[in-house]
């Protein structure tokens, strides 16, 4: 949208000494720090797995490798979308950036949904934070990772909303942004509730369309969620249509890129967790 779009060089910023944009440098330094963070956390888990306690559970009996593989795959794909979002933003393609961000959000949410399901399932099996050492380290490690993902999703949502900020600040964009954010929140919570209800129903009565529909209609909370989900997605859809010139363009690509670095890092942490926490148990 700006006249000089073609001249922004995304790998160099000539106002800084090294040519690396400040935000990018900040992000990389932060990620270096985060390496230590996860190293400490993962080490804790492994150390306790190295010397299990007599009464500890057998993770193999608890884990569902299918589910975890699926969510690992989902997270990898979200990384792809994120990378594409960064590319798009660097080319000043606001519309494409939005789509890719929405995709990343969706995949991130699926991952989180899987984790919520996984956790609730494990708790059902008797594995809790305090039931055994394995529970403590497992939930703390994967939970911390999950929190990172959740923060990433919130960040993505905020960036998505940010792309709608009009060039003319006089417009009532704040109210609009708040509505958009709340709609997101409602949509996410309601779909999580629905999915849980559906999976429970499926587990109890078999995965048929009728049992799913039945589950969504009979329970008060789930039917409210269904309605809320419908309304909020509709709202998001309406608000998601472009409205005139926006204050978002190539100069903001660095923000998207920083967010991308974070998101990818969370992804590679999961690569390690998947191998160390899940796969190694099957040896």
């Amino acid at each position, binding site marked *: 949208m*700006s006249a*000089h779009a073609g001249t*922004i060089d995304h790998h160099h*910023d*000539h*106002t*800084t*000494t*090294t040519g*690396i*944009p*400040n*935000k990018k*440098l*900040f992000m990389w*330094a*932060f990620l*270096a*720090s*985060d390496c*230590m*963070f996860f*190293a*400490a*956390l993962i080490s*804790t888990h492994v*150390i*306790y797995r190295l*010397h*299990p*306690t007599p009464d*500890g559970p057998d993770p193999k009996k608890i884990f569902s490798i299918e589910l975890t593989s699926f969510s690992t795959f989902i997270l990898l794909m979200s990384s792809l979308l994120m990378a594409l979002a960064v590319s798009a933003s660097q080319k000043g393609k606001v519309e494409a950036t939005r789509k890719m961000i929405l995709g990343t959000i969706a995949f991130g949410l699926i991952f989180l949904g899987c984790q919520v399901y996984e956790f609730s399932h494990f708790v059902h099996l008797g594995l809790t*934070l*305090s039931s*055994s*050492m394995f*529970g*403590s*380290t497992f*939930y*703390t490690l994967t939970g*911390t990772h999950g929190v990172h993902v959740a923060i990433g999703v919130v960040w993505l949502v*905020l960036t998505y909303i*940010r792309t709608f*900020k009009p*060039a*003319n*600040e*006089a417009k009532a964009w*704040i109210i609009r*942004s708040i509505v958009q954010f709340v709609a997101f929140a409602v949509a996410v919570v309601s779909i999580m509730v629905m999915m849980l209800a559906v999976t429970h129903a499926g587990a109890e009565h078999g995965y048929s369309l009728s049992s799913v529909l039945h589950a969504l209609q009979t329970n008060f909370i789930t039917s409210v969620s269904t309605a809320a989900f419908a309304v909020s997605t509709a709202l998001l859809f309406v608000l998601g249509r472009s409205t005139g010139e926006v*204050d978002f363009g190539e*100069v*903001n690509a*660095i923000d998207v890129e920083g967010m991308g670095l974070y998101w990818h890092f969370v992804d590679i942490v999961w690569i390690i967790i998947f191998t160390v926490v899940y796969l190694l148990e099957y040896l």
Partner: protein
Amino acid sequence: MEAALKTSYTEKDHAPKPSSRPWFFTRPTAKTGLISWLTTVDHKKIGLLYGIFSLFFFLVGGFEALLIRVQLAVPNNTFLTHQLYNEMFTMHATTMIFLAVMPLSAAFFNYLMPLQIGARDVAFPRLNGFAFWVFLAGAIILNVGWFAKSGAPDAGWFGYAPLTSTAYSNQFAGDSSTDLWVMGLQILGVSSVIGSLNFIVTIVNMRAPGLTMMRLPVFTWMTLFTAFLIILSFPAITIALVELMMDRSFGTSFFEVSKGGLPILWQHLFWIFGHPEVYILILPAMGIVSEILPTFSRKPLFGYPIVVFSGAVIGFLGFGVWSHHMFTTGLGTMATAAFSLATMAIAVPTGVKIFNWIGTLWGGQIHTRTPMMFALGFIWMFMMGGFSGVMHSAAPADAQQQDSYFVVAHFHYVLIGGSIFALLAGVHFYFPLVFGRMVSEFWGKLSFWVIFIGFNVTFFPMHFLGLNGMPRRTAVYDGNMGWNSGNLIASIGAFILGVGIFIYFVVIVYTYLKGKIVSRDPWDARTLEWAVPTVPPPEHNFHVTPTIHARDAFWYQKTHTKEIAEENDKHAKEEESHGGIHMPSQSWFPIITACGLLIGGLFFTHHHFLAAIGGGVIVFLGVVGWAFEGPGGYHLHLDKDGNPTDSHGDKH
């Protein structure tokens, strides 16, 4: 960010008009008064805030130390109860390390580093303000225990599990003091890491033209290394604290022995942080000394590249020696031997620094002004502390020294004789720069000598006490152990030291109010921070971003005045044609966000989780507001005399 700013404000025409911004995004503009301090993004003001609060906490920690010494002056004293004594040394150490020395170093980083690299501010000015307010929040949380029923934290400054578990906390009161300690350190960690990330970006990216890395002043190098140490070591303690917090609040069993927990894991995680931490405390001090010695010897630093490189080596090795604090935990022979040798290795790069400082003195013209006295005192005392460190590093000898007063002697020599001496030197050295006034030689030197003598009288006997079997962290000792005279002398020394510190503080307050007014560069200094146009420096630091031609940039300027003046004229015009001097705008959001952390933290430690979420919401709103507020910024234009006129909001 800077790029985004430049393009959006200088090349585009839609810079926000004040009237079009929603009210809560209006940026505060006060330059004086309370609001200017609460919303400041100026690295110099933030540095001053750090300085004032850290000196205050230094007095608090010192007061606690005096109470400790009163209790220990005679055997079986009843001045403090055991419980209160335990709170006292825990808080003394925590206060001194996290609330006095680290933030005092941060004060110097903030104030000096941007000046030394010829920048107008740090890379992320609002984040810098945030780091300070978060520090204050953490400091408050750590100390509120004194005013609560459960008392202040009492598990020692390294809080070994499982003494910190709920089972062994205070026997009757539902004990929240350990929760306060956990939360306080956690929040202080956030502050330090954020501040350090900012410094790293600033040093790497915001250097003035011509300032290559190998021309950086040594203090800036040490800032960089310290920042790296902080961002890489704090995560370990963060995880340890998270695990402890989960144990205490959510029933996990990380350190719960009956469920297979390993308290030794806490020690590893703590010291993976803890040992780099002690270098976090000393490297800034070494940086300051490396500025003072050349100035008062009127010679460049001897072996600059080696001093810098050794700093890096110290930092790097510092990550591989943590278990020397755990020689007595039964690590086994191999691990003990490995850590013993690695620890000894650190003496080499540290020694290199000492040798180079002596090399700097050699052949110079040594002016023993007050800052120089403290700097020389630093070399002597730090060296002695280092040698007792080497004695510790021999694990079999350490089996007799660990947790005895010998350790107490070691670390006070490196911490006071090292860090504090250098920081006190720095305060005197930079006083003329910051306040335009200078300490009186007589009173300055008097305070030095009283401190120097008091310090040695206090801590030298502790070597003997330790070797004579006196364990540390003991509120009482029997009179028949041969420790009476040593303790009494130490206590007397502490009061001499207290008097010295008292004189020191009176002197700086007096100097601030009535001291001799000096012009720029009273010490005939060498590095760029002294090249500011006036003392105290103007808000924009330099009228013209300086161009650097040599390592001791200011010394070079002083010897090449004509070229520099021409160059500056040229650059001033260029800068003006680009729209003037770009300055960051003030903001409310850093302090708002930090308040959220404070509120959330306090409620969390008292297990009011719902209210704590309220704090979290404030944090969230603060961050969102911060992001949507945008970096802002305005431009200054200098008139003929160098007086700034600023242009807010409108098209620059």
